[in-house]
């Protein structure tokens, strides 16, 4: 924390700490829907992060350059009762956006990789990324109407996931379903980081 004169310090000390969870996956898989379902505020959208890879401010200011360098990211917020605020970042899943993932994934509590069984390969880059980065993640299969239902074990195999990566079904439009995915992720992250000496909290 950056300190200032005393009056400000008093105020600063009462600020909550922010935590983030990344929602990743291919295009159209429901990232924005999931962020919107659980966010307490209208989800916001930021349209660049390019300066973080060393592109000058002039470059990103130019709307003339509406090409693949412009990228949108949705985020929502959930205020925790105590001293934490949770931010959810829906990041575009394609490999060419990895440069911005680094900033988003840094310090993330964990990640949800959303998958669609009709285009399962779309989530490979996300799975790769979090495996490589050792960010705890779960795979949530968004159940689209009309999509063929697969056994979770089959999906786990198709994604070549280790047995330790939880795979679950979800409906990104339903708050209870999204809640459960996020709770499972937090429990998984605790396990991965070796924090489960205490009994695991009960499922809802």
């Amino acid at each position: 924390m950056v300190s200032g004169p005393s009056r400000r310090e008093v105020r600063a000390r009462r600020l909550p700490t922010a935590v983030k969870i990344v929602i990743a996956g291919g295009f159209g898989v429901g990232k924005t829907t999931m962020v919107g379902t659980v966010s307490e505020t209208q989800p916001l959208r930021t349209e660049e992060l390019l300066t973080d890879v060393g592109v000058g401010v002039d470059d990103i200011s130019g709307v003339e350059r509406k090409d693949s360098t412009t990228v949108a990211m949705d985020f929502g917020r959930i205020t925790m009762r105590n001293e934490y605020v949770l931010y959810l970042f829906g990041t575009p899943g394609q490999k060419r956006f990895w440069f911005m993932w680094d900033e988003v994934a840094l310090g993330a509590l964990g990640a949800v990789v959303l998958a669609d069984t009709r285009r399962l390969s779309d989530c490979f880059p996300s799975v790769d990324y979090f495996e490589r980065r050792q960010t705890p993640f779960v795979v949530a299969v968004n159940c689209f109407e009309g999509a063929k239902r697969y056994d979770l074990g089959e999906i786990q195999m198709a994604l070549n996931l280790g047995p330790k990566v939880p795979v679950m079904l979800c409906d990104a439009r339903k708050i209870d379903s999204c809640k459960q995915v996020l709770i499972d992720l937090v429990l998984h992250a605790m396990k991965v980081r070796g924090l489960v000496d205490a009994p695991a909290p009960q499922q809802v």
Partner: protein
Amino acid sequence: MIPPDDPAQDPWPEDPTPPAPPAEDRFLDEHAGPMVRPYVMTSGRIEPTRGKFDLITLVVAVGPEPEGTIGLGPEHLAIIRLCQNVMSVAELTGHLDLPVATIRVMLGDLLDKGFVSMQEPEPEADMHDIRLYKAVIDGLRAL
């Protein structure tokens, strides 16, 4: 840095290129971009004078929006106005529709002048605080 994929191989482009507008419609109104370029708001600076300002660094105004503009631009004042409630850097960029680098520079100014205070997030190395996980689970359950 990872070399970008060949866009031709990407079957699901995030932003399909919209059809080009007719020539006479180009660069009018909002299509012409902001009246004031972000680098003007920051006097050409690209790095904040203080602080790193992660996307989820939380910022709060120390006092009400100041009456006279003491070397502050309208965007600085907009930040102070928004930060009457605790707000993350990401939220500020979303609300003000400005690049995150611009917001960071302006936040550095405001921090220097004592108009805001901030709370950096837990660094990755400190993700071993069990209270954090329990608080998040409790918070999610209460949704």
